[in-house]
Each structure stands twice: as structure tokens, then as C-alpha cells.
């Protein structure tokens, strides 16, 4: 048996495409496993995309791998944390049911976690930790939010997208350019060899909310007009188009972040979510931070994309606060921070 100050938590994430499990020991990450061809190959079979059935196939191998990598067994666990939402109900149900069954069979406390809160708390997976209060820009394929974080369990959304997420703006631009989905990383690479010489309009959105739908449409019109005049326009200018689109998306994000800093006076600035891998965003953010005197926090990539370490870390803080869930916990598609 572990003593009371020795807390091992298993985290389970199944809110969208990825099935993931992780173990934290007193909040420090011991393992962080996302279902992949590699994990699954050991158990045989293929990896279907985007499916609750895929979560069912992946979950046991992934939990098994996370426990082994952490060097513990399920008997060592102090509790089980799971993503309750927001997400796709059919996918969430798999993780929630598994967590409940495991907790029941080992008589462990359950901790339910908000996926968006967990993206923010990914910053506590490893030092350096941002100091409270801090601002967190969470940018991914499905979300774009600026969150004011007063403590691990006290946060408030200051602004979010009114239509498309920033990651979606990258992916849909890619589609218009004939690139494969998801196009974000490829646009980033192409942009690095281009010049941002095509001006795309900046959306006029009040407050700290975002809009990327108008940008998408203006890119569409721009490409349509240019291709009409020159059928080879896209292939001849691909790098510059990507650089221009990326520069605009980054400037939209950073303008709002700067506005949030001015509004709150907070200079601790963190970025989370899969789009934080974008090199243009990282570069511009570091430059802006240096210029404005902000402390910038960018977690490791494995904690930015959907992962279970952030679920386990969040679970740990809720565990310490005594915020437990019961066996009657149900998944929820929508859940505000």
C-alpha cells in the first residue's frame, strides 16, 4: 500500500479521435501513451479513424502500456481520472465506462475532468509552471479560447471563436490549395519558404472573441479570382500564399492576446492546444513576448495535442481538492470551463 502522500493517478482521454492513457505520481508524469499503430500492433489489428469502436479497441492496450511504462500495476493506483466532456458522446462513453468499471473493481475514487480545462493544466505536466494568475491561449482544430487562470481549478473563458477554430482555418485553406487533410503542419512548412505578400483582411470582432470564417471566405474569393486570371497561380505562388494565410491567422491570435494582456494587466502568457506547434505562431509569440516583457510558456508538443497526461494532471489537482465523481457520472457533449 502507498501512504497518503503517494498518489498515483491514471488518466483516460477519449473525447475525439485519440484514445490515450497516462499515469502521474504526485502530479508528475510517469507515462503518457496515445493510441498509435505501434501500440496497437502489439495487440494485432488495424487502427480505424474517428470511431467510438476504435476507442474500444485501443483503450485496454493503451491503459496497459501506460501502467507498464509507469512501472506500476492497477493495484498501485490511488484513483482514476477521465475526460467527461466536452466531446463526442459516442467516444466519451467508452472512456467514462472504462474508468467507472476500473474504479469499481479496485474500489478507487473517480475524478471527472473537463477536456478544455485539462488543455490549460497541461502547463503543469512539467516545469516551468506559469505563475498565477496567467492567460492561456488554447488553439486547436476544434477550439480557440483565451482563458484567465486564477488557480488550477479556477478559470474563466475571456474570449472564444464565434465560428471556426484557428486549426480549422489552416485545414480548410489547405483543402482550397489542394493539400491533404489535416494541412496545418504542411502549410507551416511551405510558409517558412514564402513571403507574406498577399494581404488578407483582419476580421472585426468585438472584445476577445475570434472569427475565422470570414478569412476562409476571403481566401476562397482571392484564389478564385487569381486562378481565373492565371490557372497556375496556386502552384506558382504556393509558398507565398501559405506564408500570407499563416501570418494572418497568427496576427489574429496575437492581437487578441495582446488585447487580453492590456485588459487584465497579466503578463504571464501560456499557449496550449495542437496549433501551438505552428512555428510561425511560436516565433511571433516569442518576439512579441520579448518586446512586451511577457513570460511565455509553451508546453512540450506531447502535452499540446490531445493526450491523457493533461487529464491525469488535472485529475491530481481535483483529487487534492477532494472533488470526486460518483459511479453515476455520465459523459457530456458540452461543458463550459
Amino acid at each position, binding site marked *: 500500500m502507498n501512504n497518503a502522500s503517494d498518489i498515483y493517478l491514471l488518466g483516460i482521454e477519449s473525447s475525439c479521435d485519440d484514445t490515450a492513457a497516462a499515469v502521474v505520481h504526485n502530479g508528475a508524469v510517469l507515462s503518457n501513451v496515445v493510441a498509435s499503430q505501434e501500440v496497437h500492433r502489439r495487440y494485432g489489428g488495424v487502427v*480505424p479513424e*474517428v470511431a467510438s469502436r476504435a476507442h474500444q479497441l485501443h483503450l485496454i492496450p493503451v491503459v496497459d502500456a501506460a501502467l507498464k511504462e509507469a512501472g506500476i500495476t492497477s493495484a498501485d493506483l490511488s484513483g482514476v481520472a477521465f475526460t467527461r466532456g466536452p466531446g463526442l458522446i459516442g467516444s466519451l462513453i467508452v472512456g467514462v465506462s472504462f474508468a467507472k468499471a476500473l474504479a469499481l473493481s479496485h474500489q478507487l475514487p473517480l475524478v471527472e475532468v473537463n477536456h478544455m480545462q485539462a488543455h490549460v493544466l497541461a502547463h503543469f505536466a512539467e516545469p516551468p509552471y506559469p505563475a498565477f494568475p496567467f492567460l492561456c491561449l488554447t488553439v486547436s482544430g476544434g477550439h480557440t479560447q483565451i482563458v484567465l487562470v486564477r488557480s488550477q481549478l479556477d478559470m474563466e473563458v475571456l474570449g472564444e471563436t464565434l465560428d471556426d477554430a484557428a486549426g480549422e482555418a489552416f485545414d480548410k485553406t489547405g483543402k482550397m490549395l489542394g493539400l491533404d487533410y489535416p494541412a496545418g503542419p504542411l502549410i507551416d512548412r511551405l510558409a517558412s519558404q514564402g513571403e507574406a505578400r498577399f494581404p488578407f483582411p483582419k476580421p472585426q470582432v468585438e472584445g476577445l472573441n475570434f472569427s475565422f470564417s470570414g478569412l476562409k471566405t476571403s481566401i476562397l474569393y482571392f484564389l478564385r479570382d487569381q486562378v481565373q486570371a492565371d490557372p497556375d497561380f496556386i502552384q506558382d505562388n504556393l509558398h507565398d500564399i501559405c506564408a500570407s494565410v499563416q501570418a494572418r491567422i497568427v496576427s489574429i491570435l496575437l492581437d487578441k492576446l495582446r488585447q487580453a494582456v492590456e485588459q487584465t494587466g497579466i503578463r504571464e502568457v501560456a499557449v496550449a492546444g495542437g496549433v501551438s506547434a505552428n512555428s510561425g505562431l511560436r516565433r511571433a509569440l516569442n518576439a512579441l513576448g520579448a518586446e512586451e516583457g511577457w513570460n511565455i510558456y509553451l508546453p512540450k508538443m506531447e502535452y499540446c495535442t490531445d493526450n491523457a497526461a493533461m487529464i491525469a494532471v488535472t485529475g491530481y489537482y481535483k483529487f487534492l481538492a477532494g472533488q470526486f465523481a460518483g459511479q453515476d457520472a455520465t459523459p457530456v457533449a458540452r461543458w463550459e470551463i
Partner: protein
Amino acid sequence: MEYLVARPEELDPVAEALLSWAGERRKFFLYGEIGAGKTTFIQAVCRRLGVREKVTSPTFGLVNEYTYPDQQGREQRAYHLDLYRLTRLEEALDIGIEDYLDDAAYCFVEWPDLIEALAPPEVVRIKLSITGNSSRKILFL
């Protein structure tokens, strides 16, 4: 039914017309290229229904759920689906597409081509096309 709108602000009366034209039919498939305004039109329809939450693109999350009060003030659900990322019918079945289509709730589906075979007989098809830099043609079938 065919409508021409010059700018997004003109969508509200079209949304109202759609809901009264559809009557008891609550499954809507929306067609149109990227940027045609599918999500923007669904925002207008949800505004008309009285949806409380922000209506955003479900491209990444696949399904958004919203709530709105009916005439008796009871909370009702509406589903907003986007199959853009999916490539096989099996994937749509795996996310529970049949449950959403069977449910009595309003259900708006963007990029529905993959699930034509599952379309309920009463489905309302909405075709959006770009006619100018902010104008659109909207067709109900």
C-alpha cells in the same frame, strides 16, 4: 423554394422561412462548397430556434449539441453535425449517425454526401451556392 441573399445579415428571414416551410420535418442536409455559408446559415436557423449556446463549426468535433426552450419553455436539444473529416460510411456509423437521425430533435448535417443512403425520407435538403463576394443563393428541396 429559392432565396437570394446579398449579405449574411439577410439570413434571418430565410431561416424563419425554412423552419415554417419544413413544418414537422427536423432533419436538414446542407450542401455547398467551403465558404458557401453552411455554418453561417445554421447559425441563423439556431438563432431563430432560440439556441442559447454559441453555434460554431463542428468540423473537428464532428457533432455540436445545443439547447433551446420550446414554446412551453421546456429544454430541447438540437444537433449540428459535420462529416467533412470522414471518408467512409462506417466512420459515420461509428459516431452514432443513426442515433442522431432517429432522434426527434432538430438535426443539421454539413457535408452529408457520405450518408445519402441513410437519409430519412422526410429530409430537407438545402443547397447553398456563391453568387458574389457576399451574396448567396439558397435552395430548399
